[in-house]
């Protein structure tokens, strides 16, 4: 068995932890990091060998980013020590880590969107001529690096106007520009299409060829098996084991990662679609900058089916959902719900038709952090007779409602008066789900319903969504996780540049085909090739 649990670690590993073997370039010993109320890292050991890819695997919230932020000098550990190339180090800020040859591509890009690529790259390590920035030298250096690692980046482009894939390559450039030979990649594939992921692995291999060692953070088992030379699994802040990717299987990794047997398949009966509930015709919607990001989109969702919207983020998902729910005015086209044309209606009227909406950014759009759970649970229906009488809120009704929903939806909290912002991410999302799914629904729109959540919450939420479908609700599911779309949806539309590249029945929707459509490939041409 390739897996070893942390408890009965054989001697080989212990000796490695004690006296660093010469090819260990980065080592963390007994790292502990505490946040208020959370033990994010609990005496974690970790070692990266020269020229290898070391995968850090763990589900959301396992403490992977925290560990690497400690390594990168952004967080100060509460206990434990770091060794770089065998030397003990203490990083007071990331400047120290950078000086020690460590580079990090963060899970959430750390870029300044309004500035040019070259400005983003030199920032903090500016090339100057006299008192002024040396733009020419910066450009030349970037062009050279971009060439060497085939990154294809124009140094003068404005970062905010680049695609996410290109932004990620800018992040890589930042690290390479500083001559990093230890590179930490925190969930780098989350924003890429399956095909882009393959391209990204190519880049990673070219880094290895140049002697750079890579820490690769992910929660996707498939990727671990594809790139890793070594794997460390984190669970609940602890390093629970190591695995050899040559012999491990997805199943064995999953068990180690979650701590129990899991199936990522969602149990569901075949859909029994009814009448069309949502009908979108020739819809065009502009984003905040006035650029149409949804253009001429057509969509129909029937009662009792889950329509999954796949696609790389930024292809109009947000605008589409906001236009359907009335939050964002559309430029042209129409939206009809249950046969009623609701184009131009305000969000309240649309919601009152029986439309539930789980927004993609729960903490910003779905909840009011400082408000109590009870208030959050009536955020969009305090005005109904159930909760208010002549403009005066019925506080007892609000409270009873909260107590019922918290129990029904298994929200873990000490009470309904607690501010929602103090709940964990999974419980916050359950709160939003509880509010939106408890209404009398005909249409349910869920965007990124499980982003950043642990497996337990994901399973719970998936079951809730399927249950709603089985009650005959039409469900529009938007997710950047192709796997999520494929496991829940009855039909799949791949959104590319503001319209559906193709709408596929579930059986036709393979990862490969969807991935290609997400990348904008002309599907038939590819199929032939």
């Amino acid at each position, binding site marked *: 068995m390739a897996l070893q649990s942390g408890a009965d670690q054989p001697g080989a590993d212990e000796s490695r932890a004690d006296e660093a073997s010469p090819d260990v370039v980065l080592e963390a010993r007994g790292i502990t990091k505490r946040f208020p109320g959370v033990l994010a890292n609990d005496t974690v050991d970790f070692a990266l060998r020269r020229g290898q890819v070391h995968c850090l695997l763990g589900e959301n919230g396992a403490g992977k980013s925290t560990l690497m*932020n400690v390594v*990168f000098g*952004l*967080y*100060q550990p509460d206990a434990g020590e770091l060794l770089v190339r065998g030397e003990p180090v203490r990083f007071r*800020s*990331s*400047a*120290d*880590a*950078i000086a020690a040859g460590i580079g*990090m591509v*963060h899970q959430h*890009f*750390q*870029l*300044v*969107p*309004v*500035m*040019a690529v070259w*400005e*983003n790259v*030199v*920032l*903090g*390590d*500016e090339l*100057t001529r006299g*008192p*002024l*920035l040396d733009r020419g030298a910066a450009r030349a250096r970037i062009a050279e690096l971009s060439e060497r690692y085939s990154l294809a980046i124009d140094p003068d482009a*404005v970062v*905010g106007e680049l695609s996410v894939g290109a932004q990620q390559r800018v992040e890589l450039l*930042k690290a390479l520009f500083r001559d990093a030979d230890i590179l930490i990649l925190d969930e780098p594939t989350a924003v890429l299409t399956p095909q882009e992921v393959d391209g990204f692995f190519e880049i990673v291999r070219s880094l290895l060829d140049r002697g750079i060692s890579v820490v690769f953070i992910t929660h996707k088992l498939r990727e671990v098996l594809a790139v890793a030379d070594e794997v460390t699994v984190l669970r609940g802040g602890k390093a629970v084991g190591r695995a050899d990717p040559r012999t491990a299987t997805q199943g064995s990794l999953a068990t180690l990662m979650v701590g129990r047997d899991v199936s990522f398949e969602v149990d569901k009966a075949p859909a029994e679609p009814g009448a069309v509930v949502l009908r979108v015709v020739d819809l065009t919607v*502009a984003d*905040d*900058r*006035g*650029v149409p990001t949804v253009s001429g989109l057509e969509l129909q969702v029937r009662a009792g089916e889950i329509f999954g919207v796949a696609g790389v983020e930024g292809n109009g998902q947000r605008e589409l959902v906001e236009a359907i729910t009335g939050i964002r*005015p*559309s*430029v042209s086209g129409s939206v009809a719900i249950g046969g009623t044309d609701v*184009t*131009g209606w305000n969000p309240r009227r649309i919601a009152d038709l029986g439309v539930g909406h789980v927004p993609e950014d729960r903490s910003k759009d779905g909840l009011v952090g400082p408000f109590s759970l009870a208030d959050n649970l009536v955020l969009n229906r305090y005005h109904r007779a159930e909760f208010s009488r002549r403009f005066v809120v019925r506080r007892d009704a609000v409270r009873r409602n909260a107590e019922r929903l918290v129990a029904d939806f298994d929200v873990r909290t000490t009470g309904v008066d607690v501010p929602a912002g103090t709940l964990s991410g999974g419980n916050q999302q359950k709160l939003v789900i509880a509010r939106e799914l408890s209404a009398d629904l005909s249409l349910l729109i869920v965007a990124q319903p499980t982003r950043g959540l642990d497996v337990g919450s994901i399973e719970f939420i998936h079951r809730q969504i399927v249950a709603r479908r089985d009650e005959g609700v039409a469900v529009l599911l938007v997710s950047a996780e192709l796997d999520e779309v494929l496991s829940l949806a009855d039909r799949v539309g791949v959104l590319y540049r503001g319209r559906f590249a193709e709408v596929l029945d579930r059986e036709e929707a393979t990862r490969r085909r969807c991935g290609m459509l997400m990348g904008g490939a002309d599907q038939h041409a590819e199929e032939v090739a």
Partner: protein
Amino acid sequence: MLLAMVDLPAQDKPTRPPRTPRRGFTRLSRLQTIGVAYLLLGVTLVVQVAGALDPAQVVFLFGLGDGVPQVGVQPAAFTLGTGLLFVLAGVVALGERWTGRYAGVALLVATVLFVPLVLVTSLALSAAGTMNVVPLMGESLRVGTPVALGALAGLYAERSGVVNIGIEGMMLAGAGVGFVVYAVLGAAGGWPLYVSVVVAVAVGGLMAALHALLSVTFRTDQIVSGVAINLLAIGLTSFLRREVLLPLGIGGGSTLPTIEIPLLADLPLVGRSLFVGKPIYFTMFLIFALTQVVLFRSAWGLRVRSVGENPHAAETLGIDVVKTRYQAVIVGGLLAGLAGAWFTLETVGTFDNLITNGKGFIALAALIFGKWRPWSAFGGAVLFGFAEALGRRIQLLDVSVGGFPVPSQFLQVLPFVVTIVVLAGAIGRAIPPASVGVPFERSR
């Protein structure tokens, strides 16, 4: 509104301004709203004003000295023509859907015409028949000096991500304390004057350091911190005035000397009006040029901007966000202090309570109007300077409408009205630094 509609080539161009097309006629877009206003104004001009004006020609002079170019204008005809143009611009803007980008252009042209329109009508309504435009421009620049410096004070702070509504207080403290030191030193010109200017600058920096302490270190709400700064400056300066200045019995001290810029001051027509002035006035231009370079061409400027846009990104690159914000806020404070010195040490020669009279807030408006870019903010400052200079001019000209003199209060509030109009017209498209107002918490 002048500058707001021009898309200046930007150093770090924010995302394109939105022109969100909307549905239906009930929700007018911003340009359409302005269009309606212009349409109404145009109709008023044509129907009401043009006919009522004295038909006699008014004459504009351009410069001082011999052979001054002059332009005669027939007020009624001019007003009629402008009115029709406004109507046209309004219609074009209202039809934004069909006219597209011409809507903005039409409004811009009409807006530019505002200035001559105001000049012509006020001159036509006054007893005088001529006006010299160049000294008016010179005065606009001079009156705009503290506003411009204040805008820069805000620029540095806000580019680094710290809202600064304490500019007024920083100016006031500089003006007050600077003058108190001057009074104590004898108030008779010479070196004490320059020492006092330095003190004023330093006091501005100190107030800014306090603002940074509150809003960066203690992460107080930045607007609240600014209010506290303003209150403190009022209390401090009026206390000092009562305790120090009044006992000394200082009426009017002498102010910074007038200097001439060699060669430039001798330029025909404009030389005497623009290139003869006082030190802080000239320094202001230098500082603007310097700011442009520092902010957009130096490493420090790059860091300041990055910290204002995305401090966490800067932090991951090893930049000390807190230190950078302190530096930027304090640099701004020094400039606000200099603006304060302009009031007491360069211009008036005494200190009265609340002598800055809201200029710090107008500076803030100029900054927003200028979309947080140095030269555009300068344009905003000059615009307000112009409004104020014009107000003074009109007061001197004895303008009367329908037999009643235009009340002085109207002219005094003119810059404030202009500010509101400009903001309503401009800010819809102004995109502040992304992280301004957001306290930064260091990762630990």
